[in-house]
């Protein structure tokens, strides 16, 4: 069972709809008890970093999530702001991130080459995965994903970058550290590309 963590932000329904179509069991997790049957976790998120961290911290789910991820090595996929929350910190907010993938979330507006572009980075862009990455098994060349964000993940260790995209600058749009994965783009709204990625996550 995939449990989509429902701590008050994020498009939970879109994930459930996509997994249902793929024939993969998925439900939302609102309480610690909901996490009992979890084999994999999706951590969604939209909006401001601090707002999302605050709600996750208040949800009462975090201690159990920490145990599942650190001790049970349960695969987890952070999406959009849910991906950014995997970092140590964000230029967007004051609260610390989860620190599950070492790195810092940066603003496009602070980088010369992307500062002059329309913001947010919105629309379909190419994703260039690292060769042989488990989330990108069975993909056609140059997959496209839907993006909607103004901040991006900057990995502390280059080895944690799993795929790159370009918006003024190259940035890590997918990060992986062992069983912890994060994607900046929206696989739940990226047609067959997103479906394939979620299918791969369900079996990796």
């Amino acid at each position, binding site marked *: 069972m995939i449990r989509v963590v429902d701590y008050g932000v994020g498009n939970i329904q879109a994930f459930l709809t996509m997994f249902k179509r793929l024939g993969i069991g998925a439900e939302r997790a609102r309480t610690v008890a909901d996490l009992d049957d979890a084999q994999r976790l999706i951590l969604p998120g939209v*909006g401001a970093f601090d707002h999302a961290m605050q709600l996750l911290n208040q949800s009462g789910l975090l201690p159990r999530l920490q145990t599942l991820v650190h001790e049970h090595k349960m695969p987890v996929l952070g999406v959009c702001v849910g991906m950014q929350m995997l970092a140590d910190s964000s230029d967007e907010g004051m609260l610390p991130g989860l620190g599950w993938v070492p790195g810092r979330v940066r603003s496009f507006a602070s980088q010369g080459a992307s500062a002059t572009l*329309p913001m*947010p980075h919105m*629309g*379909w*862009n190419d994703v260039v995965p690292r060769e042989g990455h488990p989330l990108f098994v069975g993909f056609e060349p140059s997959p496209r994903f839907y993006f909607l964000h103004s901040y991006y993940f900057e990995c502390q260790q280059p080895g944690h970058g799993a795929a790159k995209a*370009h918006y003024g600058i190259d940035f890590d749009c997918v990060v992986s550290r062992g069983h912890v994965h994060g994607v900046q783009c*929206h696989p739940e*709204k990226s*047609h067959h590309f997103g479906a394939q990625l979620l299918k791969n996550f369900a079996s990796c």
Partner: protein
Amino acid sequence: MLRPRIIPCLLVHRGGLVKTRGFKAPKYVGDPINAVKIFNEKEADELIVLDIDASVTGAVPDYGLIAKLAAECRMPLCYGGGITTAEQAARIIDLGVEKVSVSAAAVADPSLLDRIANAIGRQSVVAILDVRKRSGLFARGHELCTHNATRVHKADPFEVAKALQEAGAGEIVVNSIDRDGQMQGYDIDLATRMRAAVKVPLTVLGGAGSLQHIGELIQACGTIGAAAGSLFVFKGPYHAVLINYPSQAQKEALYGGPEAR
């Protein structure tokens, strides 16, 4: 390469899907859920669904319909119509919609966008401006309207767009009233002036009658949202209703293809 977004815009009137001309004469073209299913299959870039009754009648958003649309829609969805509070916007996002659009209510009170942005993040806040060329012998430039073009505003539409961007809009949609349903091409002058006025992503709606028109808009404005109603619901000289959308190869041809840039 970030691609231009080619976006079907569906209008809902009395629960059915309609298409208007000059914001008038809604013609019934089918069932909205069925249209969403077809655009799923065609892998449309995004979808805009606007309830054209809600603002005019003062009705609240039709959450039942929105839930059904969101559950079916496998591409990013923007919903507009009748949203006047941050609570309504948050409830719509929770139903599985990516973006909410506000028009008349934001023009009347730009601070509404700030409150909505605080609730759902500004990347999900879209301001739609209905604009038309001023008519009359000595008239020049464009004017801003609301309530299905029944009310005209004195404020300059480009200044209003900037103000709404400052207030919290993450995207501006500019909708040409006089081009609506005409299928004779976008108001490129309006599009380029609006592109120059705002820093957030811009989507242009109104007037597309062929893929060539979309190509012309992209030529003029670069990476932009090209939205269309009639083009994607009508086919042929007699305007037979047939939901259609360009293939990936057709789209690549419109923006030159990734290799060309």
